[in-house]
C-alpha cells in the first residue's frame, strides 16, 4: 500500500470514539499520580536551600538517575532500536558527540541532526 493511500485510510477512521469510561478513569488516575510527584517536588523545593548539602546530594542523585535512563535507552533498548547492532549505536553517539565538541560554539542542534540522520541512514541500509 502506498504512503498516501495508508494516510488516507488513517484519516478516514481517525476521529472515531473508541474508548470507554474505564480507560478514561485510568487516565485520570494516572494523571493525578504523575501530577502528585510534581507537586511533592514543589513542596520539597520549598524546604531546600540551593546552598545546602542536601541540595547537592539531591542534584547528584537526579543526574545519576537521568544518566542511568539515557544509557539504558542507548545500550539496552527495546523494540526497533534493538535491531541496530550495539557497535553502530555507540558509533553514532560518538560521532554526534564529536560534532558537539568540534563546534566552538557548541551547537546542540547540528549534533542532534547528525546523530538522527546517521541513524536514519543505518535504518535504510539494515
Amino acid at each position, binding site marked *: 500500500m502506498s504512503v498516501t493511500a495508508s494516510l488516507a485510510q488513517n484519516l478516514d477512521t481517525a476521529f472515531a470514539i473508541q474508548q470507554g469510561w474505564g480507560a478514561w478513569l485510568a487516565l485520570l488516575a494516572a494523571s493525578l499520580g504523575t501530577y502528585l510527584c510534581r507537586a511533592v517536588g514543589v513542596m520539597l523545593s520549598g524546604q531546600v536551600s540551593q546552598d545546602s548539602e542536601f541540595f547537592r546530594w539531591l542534584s547528584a542523585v537526579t543526574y545519576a538517575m537521568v544518566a542511568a535512563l539515557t544509557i*539504558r535507552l542507548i545500550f539496552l533498548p527495546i523494540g526497533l532500536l534493538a535491531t541496530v547492532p550495539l557497535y553502530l549505536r555507540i558509533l553514532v553517539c560518538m560521532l554526534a558527540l564529536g560534532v558537539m565538541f568540534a563546534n566552538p560554539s557548541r551547537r546542540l542542534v547540528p549534533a542532534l541532526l547528525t546523530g538522527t540522520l546517521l541513524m536514519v541512514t543505518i535504518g535504510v541500509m539494515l
Partner: protein
Amino acid sequence: MSASPIDPNDSLGGTIQSPAERVTSEMDTIESHQSEIQSSTHSVARARFTSNADAFWSGVRDGRGAPAMVLFAGMVGFGAMGRTNGFDLWFTTATSFLMFALPGQIVMLEMILVGASSLTIALATTLTATRFVTMTATLFPMLHERDRNKALYAKVHLLAMTAWAVSLKEFQTIEPKHRLSYFVGLGLLCWLISVPGTIVGFLIAGSVPMPITLGLIFINPLFFLLTFTEIKVSGYRLAILLGSIAGPICYLLDRDTSLLTAGLIGGTLAYWIDRCWIRRYDQKASP
C-alpha cells in the same frame, strides 16, 4: 545576550555569544569547585534580560530548537503507538496533554491493553514519575524567593525532562528574578508541542518508513547524552558517570526499580567522593 541576535535553532549554546564572553565562562571552570557552584547557582554578574516578558520569549525561542524537536519526535512515537494499539485520537491526545510524561504514558497504554485496574495503573505510572520529585526539588530552589509561591503548583505541570535539562543549564546565566519567566516560556512551548506531535503520530502511524521511525526513536536518548557535555560542575559529572555504570547493572538485577536504585547508588557515591576528595583538593589548590 540581550543585545546580540539569538539563533532560533540554537537552544543550548545560546548563552555563549561573543568570544569575550566565552573566555569568561572558560575561566570560570578553572576556578575552584566551591566558587564554581556558587557562581552557577547564585550570583549572576550581568543582566541577561531586561524584563520578564523578554525572559519568557527567550525561553520560547530556546525551546523552538532541540527541545521541541525531541519532544515532538517522542510524542509522534506515542501517537503512533496509540493508533496501532486501537486507542482513539481523543484519548491518545488527552494522555499527552494531561500526563505530559512519556515513559508513564507508555506504561499506561500497555497496562490498559492487558486490562489492569485503574488503581494498579495509577501506582505504576506514579512510580515511573518519581523522577519529577527530585527534578522539581533541584530546579525550583534556584528561582527567586518572590516566585517560590503557590502558583508553582500550577506551573510545575510544564516540567518534563527536556525543559529541566535546558533550564538547569540556562539558569546559570539568568538573574534569579527572570528565571521563572524563562522556564514558563520554555515549558509552555514543550507542553503545547506535545499535542500536535501526538496527533501527527496518530495520523501517520503505519505510513512511515522504518528508517524514519528509527531516527525518531533515537533522538530522545541522544539529546540527553549531548546535554551531559554541557555540565560543568565536576561533582555532577561524576554523578553522571557513576549513574551510567550503575544503571545497566541495576537494570539487569531488577527492571522496575532500576532507575531509582541506580540514581541513589550512583548519586550518593558521587556526592561522597565529591565531598571527601574533590572539594577538599580544590580548597587546598586555591589559596
